[in-house]
Structure formats: C-alpha cells, structure tokens
C-alpha cells in the first residue's frame, strides 16, 4: 500500500508522502487509518466472497459432492460472520467514514485521533482472535443460537471474544464520530448545512454506541456459558434460549441500519453531483436517517415470529416493523425526485448509485412479505430471506460502497480509475448479482430452507442458475478490483475536483495533505447548491 506511484513528485502525494511500516501502523491521521480499514475490510470481502463461491459450487448438485455437510456448515458460518463482522459493519463506517467525515466537515482530524488508532488495532486484535478460533472452526451460523452454540465442539468462546473485540472497536469508532460531528464542524457549517453522508454516519454512530454493548454482553455470557457453566441460555439449567435470541436481535437488527445508513449517505452525495441538481428534500433525508435509527431499536422481534415467542408480541413487533418502511421509502422517493429535470451523466459512481436504488427497491419491497405475520411464517428461514437480505445488503450496502469507492477514489489516491473498465465491471456485476439472487426468492417461496448443505432435487434447476450467476458476479468484482489496483498504480492524475462536487473534501488537493486543509474553510451555504436558484431556502 506504500507503492502508489513512482512518477509523482513527493509534494503531490499529500498524506501518502511518508512511507514505511511505522508511518502506517502508528499513524494518527484519520485518512491513513481509513485506508487501513478499507484494505482490511475489502480483503475480508474477497475472502468471504471466495467462501460464497465454494458454497454455491457445492450447491450445484443436490447431494454432497465437493465437501461433507459439516464443512458446508462451517463455510456458511464463516461467510456470514466474515461478511457481517469484518466487512459490512466496519467497511463504510470505519473505512470511508474515517477518511471522509473530517474532510466533509472541514476538520483537521477526528476528535480523538489516538482512540481512532487504538480502535483499528483492537479491530485487528479481534481478527487475530477470530482467526485463532479456526483451529476448530465454527459451525453455528453467524447467529450463534443457543443451545447449539453452547454444545458444539467448535471454539465458540474464542470466537465470541474476537467478536467482542471487533464490537469494541466499532463502539470506539462510533463514539469518535459522534463527538467529531458535534465539536469539529468548520465555522458556518450548521447542522442543516451538513452533507447527508454525515447525517447518515451520525445516525449510524448512535446505533453503534447504543446497540453494540448489548451484543458484547451477550457474547460474554455465551463464553461464560461454555467456560464456567453458567446457564442463562440453557433450558437444562433453568435458562432460556429465547433470551439469547432477544439479546442477539436487539443488537443485530439495529446493526442492519449500521450497514445501510452510511450507504444511503453515499447515495445522497453522489446523486446530486452527477445530476448537477440540488438534493430534493434535504431535511426529510436527514431526519429519516435518525427515524430509521430510532425505529430500528423497536423491531428486533420480527426475527422471532416462529421462535416460540408469544403471538401477541409477534403482532406488536410486526406492527412496528412496518414503520421502518416509511422513512426508507421517503429516501428513495427523494433520490428519484432529485433526478427530475437534472442534467445527468453516467460516470461509474452514478451507475453504482442508480444500481443501489434499483436493487434496494427490490430488497425493500420484499421486506413486507417478511414483516407480515402470515407470510413470514411460511418464508422464515427459507431462501426468500437469503434473497431479501442479499438484495438489501449486497444490492444495497455493497453497491453503495462501490459507488463511494468509485466516487472518492480520485480523492483518496489522486488518480482516476479507467472509466471504460469500471463500466464493464458494473455491467457484469449487475447481471451476475441478479442472476445469483433473484431466483432465490422463488426457491424460498417454494420452501427451500436456508443453511441446507443438501436439498431436494426439485430445487436443482434454481440452484444451478444461482451458481452460474455467482460466477458472473465473481468476474465482475474481479474486474473492478483489477481496475482499483491499476488505478492506484497507473491511473491518470485526478486533480482536486474531478466530479466538480461542492462538498468540502473537493476544496483541497487530491490526495489531501496530512492537515486536510491549508486553512479551515468557512461555510456559507449548504453543499447542494447546483443549478439556478429558484427559491431561497
């Protein structure tokens, strides 16, 4: 990562000037820490992706072919745990968030730079512990439901502790961002002038700070169950396995919004820039982020309609669940309305942003099937759920991340990506994604349960289709990453503001100097003042 270019003079390399291991490992620069996070999380994205490909390969035939059932169970656990804990949760918040929050609010760094570095190394520590648990790999699924997780021979206590550390890193990062947003905004940058990415990240950080400790204590209790024989979740000792599920989802449902809100923030930045148009409904988008974060804390029970929880609780959770749809819908409508009478160009960031909206609509509209009780009973724990959350998480969050990576690549590296290759990668990814996951909706309604190493022959054709799709998807992602590498080494020089954006990060050179801005800018207007003023805000 130190080898960005050979043909640039040191003066142009901004924060990338210093080389060597120490200058990265001990850096207090939020940009470098952001880059470290991005490399780490993207690496685990590729690892999780390769595991997914192996799983799809195994599912090419109904019976066991490549591996035995246990190996398959280990793989889907690793795929889930890696993608959730090591990629999606830290990916945008800690990676792009670290890099761009101070730049977007006109600050020199985050509020607590040392804490920021510490949280990165806690994250790495967590990863090391998680890797150590591979001596007897997990086969519990990423949900760790008890009592299976208390009984299996796998290294559950080790993994729990690793995830506890990763969660701690997530808490510290969220805390840092909340304080940064409150205290370090440039002069004149009022709350109503904040870029929407900041609003999304602010809501995200609140969830991280308030929800993560609950999963932390849950995993500690799970570890205590295995190490000391306490029995909070073990019915044989008077404990209650449903208590674990309540705790688990009290965190893991809000954390869904930790994954999606930052991506929504990216989309809110990209759409105005490439349609040269003021964002429509700024306040609605900003407040809906907070609304989603708030409602997100009240709906965890919709993961448990068939768990044995009382039907009354099910009805209440179902009712509350539907209210997440409203602020989410508002965002989608606002983005689309922003396009109206715009002057739109389709550079790669915009293509990914539009893809986000397209796929996220599908993911979002399949949500009510799972929120409604009658259909949930049938669809719960089937491939319908798998399809739904891949449309929101991969079609949503990951496309948002790709949009952000393409959008901010010039700022981070000072170089441009090859636009033709980027578009090719986009097209292949788009086709591959839909081929892989859309068919899973159909499989799911026909009853194929998830987490099945083997399946009935009647689902064979659908699975072959999905597996073929996964190869196309892999090719698309491979092209994209090749383009990233090429862009970093050989890309055209970018200049300070290749997309002609109005947010503050574009008002400083690419890559930015260590201090971000030569002089802290004074803000006089919101960052979406494209086009001709019709009405004054």
């Amino acid at each position, binding site marked *: 990562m130190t080898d960005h270019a050979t043909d640039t003079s040191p003066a142009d390399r901004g924060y990338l000037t210093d080389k060597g291991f120490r200058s990265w490992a001990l850096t207090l620069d939020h940009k470098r820490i952001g880059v470290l996070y991005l490399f780490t999380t993207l690496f685990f994205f590729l690892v999780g992706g390769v595991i997914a490909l192996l799983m799809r390969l195994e599912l090419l035939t109904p019976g066991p072919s490549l591996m035995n059932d246990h190996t398959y169970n280990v793989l889907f656990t690793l795929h889930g745990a890696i993608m959730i804990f090591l990629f999606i949760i830290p990916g945008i918040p800690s990676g792009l968030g670290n890099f761009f929050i101070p730049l977007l609010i006109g600050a020199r760094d985050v509020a607590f730079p040392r804490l920021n570095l510490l949280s990165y190394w806690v994250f790495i520590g967590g990863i090391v512990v998680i890797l150590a648990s591979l001596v007897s790999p997990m086969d519990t699924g990423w949900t760790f*439901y008890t009592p299976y997780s208390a009984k299996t021979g796998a290294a559950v206590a080790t993994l729990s502790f690793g995830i506890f550390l990763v969660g701690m890193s997530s808490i510290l990062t969220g805390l840092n961002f909340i304080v940064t947003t409150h205290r370090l905004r440039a002069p004149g940058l009022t709350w109503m002038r904040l870029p929407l990415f900041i609003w999304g990240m602010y809501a995200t950080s609140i969830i991280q700070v308030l929800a993560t400790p609950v999963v932390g204590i849950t995993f500690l209790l799970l570890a205590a169950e295995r190490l000391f024989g306490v029995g909070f979740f073990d019915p044989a000792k008077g404990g209650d396995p449903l208590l674990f599920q309540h705790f688990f989802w009290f965190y893991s449902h809000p954390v869904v919004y930790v994954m999606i809100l930052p991506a929504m923030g990216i989309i809110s930045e990209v759409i105005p820039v490439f349609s040269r148009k003021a964002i429509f409904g700024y306040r609605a988008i900003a407040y809906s982020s907070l609304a989603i974060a708030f409602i997100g804390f009240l709906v965890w029970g919709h993961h448990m309609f068939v768990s044995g929880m009382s039907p009354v609780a099910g009805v209440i959770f179902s009712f509350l669940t539907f209210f997440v749809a409203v602020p989410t819908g508002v965002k989608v409508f606002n983005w689309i*309305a922003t396009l109206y009478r715009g002057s739109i160009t389709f550079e790669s960031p915009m293509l990914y942003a539009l893809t986000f909206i397209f796929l996220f609509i599908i993911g979002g509209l399949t949500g009510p099937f799972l929120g409604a009780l*009658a259909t949930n009973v049938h669809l719960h*724990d089937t491939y319908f759920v798998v399809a739904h959350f891949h449309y929101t998480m991969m079609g949503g969050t990951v496309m948002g991340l790709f949009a952000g990576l393409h959008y901010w690549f010039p700022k981070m590296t000072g170089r441009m990506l090859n636009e033709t290759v980027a578009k090719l990668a986009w097209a292949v990814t788009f086709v591959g994604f839909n081929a892989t996951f859309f068919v899973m909706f159909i499989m799911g309604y026909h009853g194929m349960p998830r987490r099945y190493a083997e399946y009935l022959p009647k689902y064979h054709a659908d699975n072959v289709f999905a597996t073929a799709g996964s190869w196309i998807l892999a090719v698309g992602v491979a092209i994209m990453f090749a383009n990233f590498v090429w862009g970093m080494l050989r890309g055209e020089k970018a200049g300070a503001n290749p997309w002609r954006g109005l947010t503050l990060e574009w008002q400083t050179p690419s890559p930015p100097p260590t201090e971000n801005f030569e002089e802290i800018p004074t803000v006089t207007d919101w960052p*979406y003042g494209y086009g001709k003023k019709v009405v004054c805000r």
Partner: protein
Amino acid sequence: MNTLALFPDQAARSTGEVDAVFLFIVAVGLFFFFLTQGFLIYFAIRYRRRRGEPEEETPQITENGILEFIWVVIPSLLVLAIFVVGWWGYRDMVRPIPGAMEINVTARQWLWEFTYPDGRKVINELRIPVGKPVKLTMTSTDVLHGFFIPDYRLKQDILPGRYTHLWLQPEKTGTFVIFCSQYCGTGHSAMMANLVVVPPDDFARWQKGPAEGAGGESLAHRGEELVEKSGCLACHSLDGSRKVGPTFKGVFGHQVELEGGSSVVADENYLKESIVEPNAKIVKGYPPVMPTFKGTLSDDDIAAIIAYLKTLK
C-alpha cells in the same frame, strides 16, 4: 422444475389465505416497483446529458410539501393494510381447532419422533387422516429445531425444555415433506420427515395394525401409572376436592389464579413448569410446599403425565 409453478401445493387450511396475503403484497409491491423504477429509469433517460454536451442549468427544487406529504401518507396506509391482512392470516393459522387429535413431536439431532395418543411411536413419518384436525405438541431433546411443511405454509420452532404447538387441518391426501427449518448442526439438511395424509379408513386400519414403535401402552395410561407411583395423589385429588394442592380435575386448559394477583392458562408449558419448578408459579391460596420432580421424571414421563391430565375433564 416444480418451482415453475407459482405456488407450492395448497394442501391444508389457511394455505389459500397465506397465498392471498402473498399476492396482495405482490400487488402492492409491483405497484411501487413500477412506479419507482419507472420514474427512476424515465428520469435517467429523459434528463441525460451526452459527453461533450454543455451542462444545462438545472432548477433548484428543494422541497415540495404536498408531494412529500403524499408519499409519507400513502405508503403508511398501505403498509398498515399489509400489516392487517398479515395479522388476520396469522390469526387463522394459530387458532386452535376443537376436537383435534393430539400428537406429540420430539425433535432430536437429527430425526423426528411422533408419539400418538395410543403410545405408538413413529420415526420420521407423520401419518394423519385427511380432513381431521391435528394438534402437534412439540419439544426438543437437545437444540433448537424447526417444524416446517411448505405445502401447509406452516412453521414453528421447537425448543428444548418447553412445548410449542401447531394445528394441522389437512385437506388433501398425499405425501408431503417436513423440513427442519432451524439450523441444528451437521445433519440439519438431512433432518426430514414425511407427512403422509391418508383417507380416514386407511388411517383407522393403520392404527389397528401392529405397532412399529415402542408403543403398545397408551400415553395417558402410562401417565396415570406415573401419577400414582410418584405420589402426586397425596396432595392432588382427582375428583375436584381440595387437598394440600389444587385438584387435577379439569386442570388442563383452565384459568389458574396465582399468588400476587396474576393468572395463567394451565397449558402444557405451565404443567411442565409446575412439575419441574413447582414454586415458580404458586396457585392462589395454596402453600409453596411441592418438591421438584426435576431429574426424577424424564421428559417422556412428563409428556405422559400431561396427556393423562388432559383426560381428567
């Protein structure tokens, strides 16, 4: 290629309703799908700018109160409607059916065991008569499992240490698959059973035939023996009279007043709890003196006793 059909088989009560709810949400979803994607794609094409073309100055439209009001209110109403139809459909699925035949289901890694009222036990095959309601009382001996019949649109998780229920109302004869839907370890995907729905005559004949399982003695009968042997009758009467503890007569399914003012319905879970954790819920007006039978009575024993208590109307 069965999945080319729109729906899986509709083979029991409320499958039609579930599919109707599904279609309703599909209709709402398609409406929004075409509305949003339509505008998205239309705007993207209509307002595109080709490379090299000059940038047109765009109007700064930032808010529109009426439009935003509409797109908050209409989706809110529609999701409320979805919630309500989902709730109704669900109410019908979980509503108890009077006169149902009771079958106990024990899930363990990785097989299903079905125990009939006459004590007959069958592994991995649930045989029931068409048109007759069935109540499944399910528990697990080890980890979580899930009972799932796609053709019935029914699913319920199964937990160790407590009972969960499902009501079946089969409307078609045939063989249907029962999946384990809750991940339960290595053999999860192989944990399947057959639901065999036969005409009532065939079922009666099958019931008279030689027992395949360890049966022979009816569940309630075994429960009666256990109640006598375990000394329950010293404190609990069978005829409704008051002894040290409340009577067994008519206890199942009745509202029980507890110390502290609350009340519960005496269902399987309550009875089981009263046997293994007698002091967790004290019946109003009775002393908390019953010893625990945890460890003395096995899960199978408790199931038998509950079956017996159900017969004491």
